[in-house]
């Protein structure tokens, strides 16, 4: 009953990418609606997705191409769709994927003076970055909501959880970081 | 030149008092304008005395910006231009301190003083080095030369009809009832004057110099603290002086202080109400506007003046 047009998903090998895009474009998928990247860290691959739209028959194709994380390079599509320059510029900045022949590669789009690894990659640790680059306000009281979970009904543990902690939040966060293997989100819940 | 020769301390004191009064009145009008605009826009608006507070606050502030001598002098030029033009114009005929240093030919001097303030501003803004200010100066100068054309034409018609270059003489010629006001005696030249007055007051659609959304906010971009306060007072007295000039030329002058205040207020509000309902012209559209209909009206006004003079003789 609810339809989103006719959406198909397909993947293509890197060698056939340009040909497939041209094919789809000749088939009526003339609009490049979105170009984006998913980082499959455990597979060691990036998946670049091109979302193409047919504005006449209302069809949508999500065309994915997997490329290795070690050599992230792709041909540009900015000669077909001019606005892809911006997408490619941003992906280049945020994921470190290089687009052959695209203008504005390496030109900062959002970040300024960025020295670290590209920030949208999965292995970029935001908590570590913020601990290294920013300082806690002295006297800052950390309220970790995870301490409430499962025992909010208990009056005493509720007041315990709100007890201001004496230790320095900065050290605690660093300790958390060392201890937590996969949980990179720990202790950051109150930061934003 | 009689008044100029009769200078004494008391007279100067009266003049100083009248300048201060004019600045205060200009600021009050500014406050009323903000209130009126707010009401048009269904807002409550600031209190009418807000400009006094603004100016007082600005005068108590100091700046550490260094741009050069001309940058500092520009607000002074502007204010001096305002005071000069104000002192030349008789506000209330025959009242010491408000009668002005009227003499034959002072109309021309007044026009020069109007240019003088703006030129000083232009030099100062140029030295501030801000590109917005420079764009605004080029806009302002081109707009100024374009609205001075219909204004001068209206003035020529007026002078031709009255036969004197003195503001006092022009006022005397209009004495004796509303029908003698030049606005009704020669409506064509009056319309040219009214339209060019819109350009002079720089409310929209002719506020291309300040143009907050385009080149914020033009020449005063780099100004702050005392300089901005000085410019605000300069603008206040300039507005009063221009309205008074218009009142003298086209609305028959004033014989008492309340009459002068009312007439100045009405003339001021004419520009404000037009500004309330129109967006801003582009720079070249504004220039073209003044060179089209107001100029034709001015020329027709001269023709009408000649005709009337011919018929009268």
């Amino acid at each position: 009953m609810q339809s989103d047009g006719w959406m198909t998903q397909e993947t293509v090998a890197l060698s056939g990418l340009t040909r497939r895009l041209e094919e789809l474009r000749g088939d009526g998928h003339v609009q490049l609606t979105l170009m984006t990247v998913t980082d499959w860290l455990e597979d060691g691959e990036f998946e670049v997705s091109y979302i193409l739209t047919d504005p006449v028959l209302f069809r949508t194709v999500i065309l994915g191409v997997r490329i290795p994380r070690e050599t992230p390079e792709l041909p540009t599509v900015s000669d077909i769709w001019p606005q892809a320059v911006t997408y490619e510029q941003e992906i280049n900045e945020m994921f470190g994927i290089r687009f052959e022949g695209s203008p504005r590669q390496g030109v900062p789009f959002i970040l300024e003076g960025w020295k670290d690894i590209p920030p949208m990659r999965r292995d970029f640790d935001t908590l570590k970055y913020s601990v290294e680059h920013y300082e806690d306000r002295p006297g800052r009281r950390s309220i970790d909501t995870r301490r409430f979970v499962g025992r909010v009904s208990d009056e005493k543990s509720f007041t315990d959880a709100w007890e201001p902690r004496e230790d320095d939040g900065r050290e605690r966060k660093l300790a958390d970081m060392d201890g937590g293997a996969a949980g990179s989100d720990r202790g950051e819940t109150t930061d934003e | 030149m009689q008044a100029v020769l009769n200078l004494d301390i008391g007279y100067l004191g009266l003049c100083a008092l009248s300048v201060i009064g004019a600045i205060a009145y200009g600021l009050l009008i500014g406050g009323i304008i903000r209130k009126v605009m707010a009401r048009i826009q269904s807002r409550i608006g600031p209190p009418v005395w807000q400009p006094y507070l603004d100016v007082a606050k600005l005068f108590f502030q100091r700046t550490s910006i260094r741009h050069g001598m001309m940058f500092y002098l520009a607000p002074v030029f502007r204010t001096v231009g305002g005071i000069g033009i104000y002192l030349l114009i008789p506000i209330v005929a025959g009242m010491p301190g408000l009668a002005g240093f009227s003499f034959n030919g002072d109309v021309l001097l007044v026009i020069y003083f109007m240019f003088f303030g703006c030129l000083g501003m232009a030099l100062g803004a140029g030295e501030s080095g801000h590109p917005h200010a420079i764009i605004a100066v080029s806009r302002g100068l081109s707009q100024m030369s374009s609205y001075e054309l219909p204004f001068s034409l209206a003035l020529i018609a007026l002078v031709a009809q009255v036969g004197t270059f003195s503001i006092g003489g022009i006022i005397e010629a209009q004495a004796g009832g509303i029908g003698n006001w030049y606005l009704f005696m020669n409506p064509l030249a009056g319309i040219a004057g009214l339209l060019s007055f819109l350009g002079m007051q720089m409310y929209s659609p002719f506020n291309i110099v300040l143009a907050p959304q385009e080149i914020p906010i033009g020449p005063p971009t780099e100004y702050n603290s005392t300089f901005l306060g000085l410019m605000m007072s300069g603008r206040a007295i300039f507005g009063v002086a221009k309205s008074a000039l218009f009142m003298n030329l086209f609305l028959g002058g004033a014989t008492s202080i309340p009459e002068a205040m009312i007439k100045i207020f009405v003339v001021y509000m004419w520009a404000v109400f037009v500004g309330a309902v129109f967006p801003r012209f582009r720079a070249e559209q504004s220039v073209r506007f003044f060179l089209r209909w107001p100029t034709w009206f001015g020329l027709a006004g001269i023709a009408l003046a000649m005709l009337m003079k011919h018929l009268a003789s």
Partner: protein
Amino acid sequence: MSNDYDVTKETHLWFGPQHPGVTGNMSVELWLKGDTIQRGITHVGYLHRGFEKLMERRTFIQSFPIVCRICVPEPDTNEYLLAKGLEQLGGIYDDVPEKARWIRTLTLEMARLAATLMVLGGQVGSMGLGPVPQWMMTLRDYVLDSFEELSGHRIYHMYIVYGGVRRDLPEGFEGRLEKTLQTIEERLPWIDRLMFENDVFRKRAIGIGYVPPEWVDEMSLSGPIVRAMGIPRDVRKDYPYEVYPELDFDVITEEGSDMFARARVRRREIAQSINLIRQMLADMPKDGPFCLKLPSLMHWRIPKGQTYVRAEASRGEFGYFVVTDGTDKVRRVNVRGPSYVHGVSLLERMLPGTNISDLSSLMVSLQTCPPEIER
């Protein structure tokens, strides 16, 4: 374009980021000859908060307070799209109750109304006409009051969540919303009079900011920009979602493709939104659940998958590309805001030959919104 002020030297000018004429925290670097722009580059990055990265580290329900911050004037589209993407991937989209669909559509349309009111006021506001923007902001405030009543918040509602909506309509909400709509309708003729019949506005808007129709497919433009070219393209009609198929409306088009045509489209869309809201208030089912029983907030895991969902915002096509990987967090969310194309590629392409006076009104006309460019 007049070359009255033609000089050989180019002026280098930053238009923003601190500039009253710029729509938000962005800047355009310009090279001018006289008053005419030779070329320009859009710069963003003053507002980057890394929403997409933040969402990768939060559970699904924790993402909702984040997404609504992507668009200040119209946050509901973001909430709806994230909810829809997660529902589709989690396989509960078809179970969303009927009443929730109606309330969602009502919210989306109210958000469109509020945003359109604001941008139409901004259109003349950028040209220095004071009253219209102020009236429009007042009217928008009345709509925000309705939102406050509905969700408890004025700007960021966090009202649409996966499974439905957060709360039912309050008692007597229809009557009060109807009153708001009447207030807006009473003021609209004033706005027509002061804006569309205003000679100065017509002079400045007609023929300025022309977008050629062949750029539409090339750059995948959407929204009022396309509809002002006479091309009836609207996500609500083309990819019908929620209860839009059951409502009676036509896609509004105008001819001319300039700033005036776009303003006309927006003006008529205000009337359209009011009409749609009235239809929804009349046809909405009065009873029934407004939300599914939500999957566990802390432990809902969505199987691996990806989807692209879209909706019509006031600016054009808003899209969310959502990837999940079987955990309780999203793998990747990419927000496709219409301004990403309109504010960067299209604006840069339109800049050469534009007069500097028209730049801010052009940006309002394209409705560039920096938060959705940098996300």
